[in-house]
């Protein structure tokens, strides 16, 4: 009798240990799986994948646009007056993208001022323009000067900053049209533009607006040295 009990107990004990070990093992397996997904290589691949998807989607948008333009031209192929209108429509659209049109929309207005300790410099303006573009700004101006593809922001002397060839004195009012929430968070993000400006004791104020008006570029983008490579 005594021997049977010993046998049952020892077998029971062994089974218990076995079960415990197995469960522990299962837990470990689960954990290793999670870390495996988070390896660097895979993360990189995922970013790459997302990147190509975005690029493809952009290309699809362009393709659809081009196709609809082709359709428009083809539908008016017999009517020369109509096809002229389409050409003009295309011209107007590109004029808008280039900055030749006065625009209006929601956005943000940022005012940068000199104070008793610091002055606003070229980098403060270059940096905010870059941040706003990253946040999808569709149009930007500084003190009424529209930022276009060939706009320079240069230092001249100590009192002015040269923008589009014009001397601009402080304070600077930077206006941008775009998703107002994106634009706001782009500059207010922790460690972002406003934090950095404060770190250097510079004066920045901003206001999110439902209507921001941005003037047209008064010049014309010209090519003297560059030509289309056909």
């Amino acid at each position, binding site marked *: 009798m005594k021997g049977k009990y010993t046998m049952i107990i020892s077998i029971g004990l062994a089974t218990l*240990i076995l079960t415990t*070990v197995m469960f522990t093992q299962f837990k470990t397996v689960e954990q290793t799986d999670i870390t*495996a997904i988070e390896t660097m290589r895979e993360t990189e691949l995922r970013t790459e994948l997302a990147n*190509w998807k975005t690029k493809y989607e952009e*290309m699809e948008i362009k393709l659809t646009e081009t196709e609809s333009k082709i359709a428009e031209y083809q539908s008016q192929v017999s009517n020369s007056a109509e096809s002229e209108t389409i050409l003009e429509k295309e011209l107007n659209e590109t004029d808008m993208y280039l900055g030749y049109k006065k625009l209006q929309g929601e956005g943000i207005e940022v005012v940068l001022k000199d104070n008793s300790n610091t002055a606003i410099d070229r980098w403060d303006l270059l940096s905010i323009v870059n941040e706003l573009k990253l946040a999808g700004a569709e149009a930007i101006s500084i003190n009424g000067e529209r930022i276009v593809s060939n706009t320079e922001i*240069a230092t001249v002397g100590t009192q002015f900053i040269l923008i589009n060839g014009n001397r601009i004195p402080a304070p600077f009012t930077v206006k941008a049209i775009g998703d107002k929430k994106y634009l706001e968070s782009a500059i207010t993000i922790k460690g972002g533009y406003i934090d950095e400006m404060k770190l250097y004791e510079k004066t920045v104020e901003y206001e999110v607006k439902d209507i921001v008006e941005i003037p047209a570029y008064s010049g014309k983008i010209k090519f*003297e040295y560059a*030509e289309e490579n056909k």
Partner: protein
Amino acid sequence: MQEKKIAALLGIMCFMLTVGICVQMRTVTSTASRMGRTYAENELRDSVLKWKEKYDLAYDNLETKEAKLDKLRETASTSSEASENVKAGLEQNNMALGFTEVIGSGITITLKDAEVATNKLDLSSSLVHYSDLIEVINALKNAGAEAVSVNGERIVNVTAITCAGNIIKINNEKVGVPFVINAIGSSEKLYGALTMHGGYIDKLKEDGVTVEIEKKDTITIPKYNGVYKFEYAKVVE
């Protein structure tokens, strides 16, 4: 007595079995997860390739369609002188938007991180930062550059340059050292402005960045592959 022996033997056997299973499982798990990982990676690699292929296909398709559109514009503009002017304006605009590959004289600037440790304490200043790229591009525009690219990425009005960790992105594409900046314009004027004493290039050299500037007769700058899309801005007449 014999039963006790059997019990002890069974216990020992069970214990050894457990150890054996444990060892076995551990080995299996590590191989399985390694295999699982590479399998997942391969899957991902496949999809990356698949999307890239789709992109390439769409790109080719677009090129064909654009050529067709150009022809249609041609036909549309032959009807009158006014429409020919409109077409010429449109072509000029598309060039300014960066939608065409352009060629012309200019300069090439190459920026590299310092090869040897400079005697400066601040090692970071001898590296090329995103801010350096923004400053150099700006200096080129100030000197009248008509088209600029960095490592093949055309700089257009909507281009943003970002820096996350040590990765610099232009037009959302990764770029790395060496940075080759091409600019079309008067090569004399660009060269003169950029090498000016006290200019930004001067500052970079002082910081220990390796800078090469070369005047060139022909520079080709690729077109911008992104899109312009205005969702919030409306034209005020």
